[in-house]
């Protein structure tokens, strides 16, 4: 233990210092930047509420992208998750499905958006597609872990009562899975609101378009209105979703 232990910590420290130097980590530059940050914030108040209709339109579209994207992703994830569950799928299918999921999950929503904007053009539709692409793989992984964690006991109890196979699935397996699946899906909806909020930066619809446009125009009061709307949207969805999830699990 002793020596290998210290070598390990020294290695981690070395990696950090190496990366810090490469990323030009600098306290003085941060301090020099403080006045500009304050200036930036000062220009953002008071928010320009005349752009509120734009902000609300964008927020609504972001919400809709997240809802449709998460919904389709959940449907796609369902069959994939059974293929990626060790206790259900035969080994060849399990390893195949897990590898495919790992490859697709390596790329984040925004990168998918660049791809889909190029493929189907600007607007919310490529945004939906990119949310689907990333979320389906994440949900499939989460669902499959829930399937692997199914307890045999409650299923056995249903079988012991002389239930049919279908009844054992309905009353033994589903009560263990459905609340978890719904909970994971709601959680992804929360994170997808945030992900969908920046999709507009690359032309894939939603509130991000307005944030980027106003910042480019140096119209900080307008940008701050849009940001405030985004914060309210994210908080509202988080609140509603976590309340629901608490009741499920």
């Amino acid at each position, binding site marked *: 233990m002793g020596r290998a232990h210290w070598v390990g910590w020294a290695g981690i420290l070395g990696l950090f210092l190496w990366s810090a130097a490469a990323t030009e980590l600098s306290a003085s530059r941060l301090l020099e930047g403080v006045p500009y940050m304050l200036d930036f914030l000062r220009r953002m108040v008071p928010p320009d509420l005349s752009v509120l209709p734009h902000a609300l339109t964008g927020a609504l579209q972001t919400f809709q992208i997240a809802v449709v994207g998460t919904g389709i992703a959940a449907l796609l994830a369902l069959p994939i998750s059974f293929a990626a569950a060790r206790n259900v799928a035969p080994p060849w299918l399990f390893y195949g499905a897990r590898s495919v999921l790992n490859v697709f999950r390596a790329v984040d929503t925004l990168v998918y958006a660049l791809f889909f904007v190029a493929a189907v053009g600007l607007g919310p539709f490529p945004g939906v597609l990119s949310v689907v692409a990333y979320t389906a793989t994440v949900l499939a992984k989460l669902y499959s872990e829930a399937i692997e964690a199914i307890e045999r*006991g409650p299923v056995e*109890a249903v079988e*012991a*009562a*002389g239930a049919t196979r279908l*009844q054992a699935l309905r*009353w033994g397996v589903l*009560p263990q899975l459905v*609340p978890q699946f719904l909970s994971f899906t709601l959680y992804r909806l929360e994170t997808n609101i945030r992900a969908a909020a920046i999709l507009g930066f690359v032309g894939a619809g939603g509130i991000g378009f307005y944030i980027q446009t106003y910042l480019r125009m140096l119209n900080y009061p307008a940008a701050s209105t849009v940001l405030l709307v985004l914060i309210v949207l994210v908080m509202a969805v988080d609140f509603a979703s976590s309340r629901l999830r608490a009741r*499920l699990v």
Partner: protein
Amino acid sequence: MIRVRGLSKRYPGGTVALDGVDLDIAAGELVALIGPSGAGKSTLLRCLNGFVTPTAGEVQIGGATVSGATGEGLRLIRAGIGFVFQQFNLQRRLSVLENVLIGGLARTPRLRSLLGLFPATDLARARAALARVGLSGLEARRVDTLSGGQQQRVAIARVLVQEPRVILADEPMASLDPTLSETVLALLQRISEEDGITVVTSLHVLDLARRYGRRVIGLRGGRVAYDGSSEGLTEAAARRIFADAAA
């Protein structure tokens, strides 16, 4: 009611769990099954309801042959046998009432059971079973909000809904504290007496077996080492069942 002949079970790893067990248990008897861990108590109980397929021998319950039964035949036999588990095996996220309704699934019309639209007769039977185990008023509670003792009583209510001829209980109080163990055993005893249900329960506490089973069957190394009255289970007889079990 229960007839076992030459029952043997060898698991794929080579472990012999049961080695030529012969038993006859009459209707309405309450039998305590004792023995050191690994003696084959669980395997015997699980052979009785077809969870485990024996390597050799025969099990009959109420004239129906369990060993070798499969599919629909086994399902109908199981409908008449209640099984109480050590870990309760309830659906923690479902309500108390839903958990009890699971016991009646074999009788519930298929489609209605899959949709969760239980007929009034099922609901009435489930409520009556809950009243019998002293849990009236808790129907709507989620099971994971109940204490361990209450959960095991929900599991017993689930078994009562089956209106079984036989109840098998595999260490039903091993997850409970001593006072609750007494409650659960007293409940099984009362059910056996009032309804004439045959009850076979494995117990790891010798003292409880003496007090609650009029008949005690001791297993050791997969064979019947004692089969007689609880009064006849002397210290010497108990030592023979549990001898070198610690080694």
